[in-house]
């Protein structure tokens, strides 16, 4: 009897671990309409570390331990040309780097979601109505993984890209807290 319980428990554990690879192919929360929506950029200014963000409404819960979502996010990061401003692997360029631990508008999943949906001052466009919400969540998962915020059991042990380690991989140590450099005397 107790053996059966142990076996059942082991199977349950194994099944629970399958979430990592689960592919949620169809969602109900895709765009409610294709008609152009008003794009608005909030009053936010950078540097507030997410302070002053309003609650966002989304029908979907964010699953930080899903590896498939993260790799889809990586693909979309290239497709939608996020890399054009934020650099391949999030090294930064015209837009801020995404692989460090500085988050101008907050590092929580819903804060990153809001940043992509609403756009931010000084260049970040709003992608509301342009990218379905599900894909924005996938991008959120990938963007957070680049600064080591992904669950270690979900971060990839290798990536599709050639040429060394990518910041989203779990071999890398997580980003060091940013300290303001001492001004030179």
């Amino acid at each position, binding site marked *: 009897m107790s053996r059966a319980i142990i076996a059942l428990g082991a199977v349950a554990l194994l099944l629970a671990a399958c979430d990592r690879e689960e592919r949620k192919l169809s969602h109900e929360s895709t*765009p409610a309409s294709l008609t152009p929506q008003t794009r608005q950029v909030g009053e936010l200014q950078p540097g507030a570390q997410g302070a002053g963000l309003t609650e966002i409404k989304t029908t979907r819960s964010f699953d930080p331990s899903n590896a498939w979502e993260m790799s889809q996010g990586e693909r979309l990061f290239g497709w939608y040309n996020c890399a054009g401003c934020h650099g391949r692997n999030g090294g930064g360029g015209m837009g801020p780097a995404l692989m460090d631990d500085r988050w101008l508008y907050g590092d929580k999943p819903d804060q990153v979601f809001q940043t992509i949906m609403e756009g931010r001052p000084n260049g970040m466009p709003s992608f509301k109505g342009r990218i379905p919400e599900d894909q924005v969540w996938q991008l959120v998962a990938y963007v957070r993984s680049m600064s080591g915020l992904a669950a270690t059991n979900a971060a990839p042990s290798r990536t599709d890209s050639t040429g060394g380690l990518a910041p989203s991989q779990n071999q890398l140590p997580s980003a060091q807290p940013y300290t303001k450099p001492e001004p030179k005397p």
Partner: protein
Amino acid sequence: MSPLHDALHPAGIQAAHIASLWWFTVVLCAVVFVAILAALFYALRHAPRADAGSLPDMASMDRPEARTERVVVTGVVLSAIGLLALLGASVATDRALATMPLENAVHIEVVGNQWWWAMNYDDPDPSRIFSTANEMHIPVGRPVIVSLKANDVIHSFWVPNLHGKKDLIPGRVNTIQLRADKAGVYRGQCAEFCGLQHAFMAFTVVAEDDAKFQQWADAQRKPAPEPTDAKAKLGHDLFMSGTCMMCHQIQGTTANARKAPDLTHIASRPTLAAGTLPNDPQVLAAWIRDPQKLKPGAQMPAHHVPDDEIDALVAYLETLK
């Protein structure tokens, strides 16, 4: 008319070479197989019979069988001749495949994607280059040079009626040369497992005479017409302001992304979703609403938007002949 997918009914010189090699191999192997079976049955019939009381036959221990050596030597020589014949035929076929005359060739670049094909028709004049998807028209009797590329994983280009397989490898360019000698519609298929929808990654090859091919190519080069009726206009506006234009391209409009199939002349194509579905308005509407129901895993997201928006989009796409 469903397209042919049959390597034993070659419609081009390359496939004909491969088919004759195939027939040669089959016939030779069949002859060998029948000969071996005949030898086996002969041996079974002519072996001395023993019953429960007879002693084991130890004769071969004392004196080697006189005929064994002759039989073995004959067998080895015949096998060697047969294998050399196969080798020779194979080398000759390879040589014939590699020496197809290439004057006046049509150049097409085929790019494999999960799970569809992009066909880019090259031309020395850049303004005459055009793209389509999952459909390839080729002129009968003219050689076609296909450069093969891949965007994500390894795929394989296979039109059994025209040629053998050739892989599309990310970061590399492979080429395959073929020629259709018989007009017809042939089916091509991805022949290298490439993920969830590998089985539904097909395309259509239409081989037609040169005049018809030029006519088709000229039509494909034209940019998309401006929509005229109100519904199609609404569809156009929705396409340009929403998610569609983030991935798709329609020549002559602001939709210029190259991540998903070119839709400039989608209404003229025979199939949707890489040979998966017939191209008719109802299927197209169902596809836009939720591609995951029709082809799970396809990279296009679902659009649960109001019916009138889907109708308008379909009305617009149907004008893209």
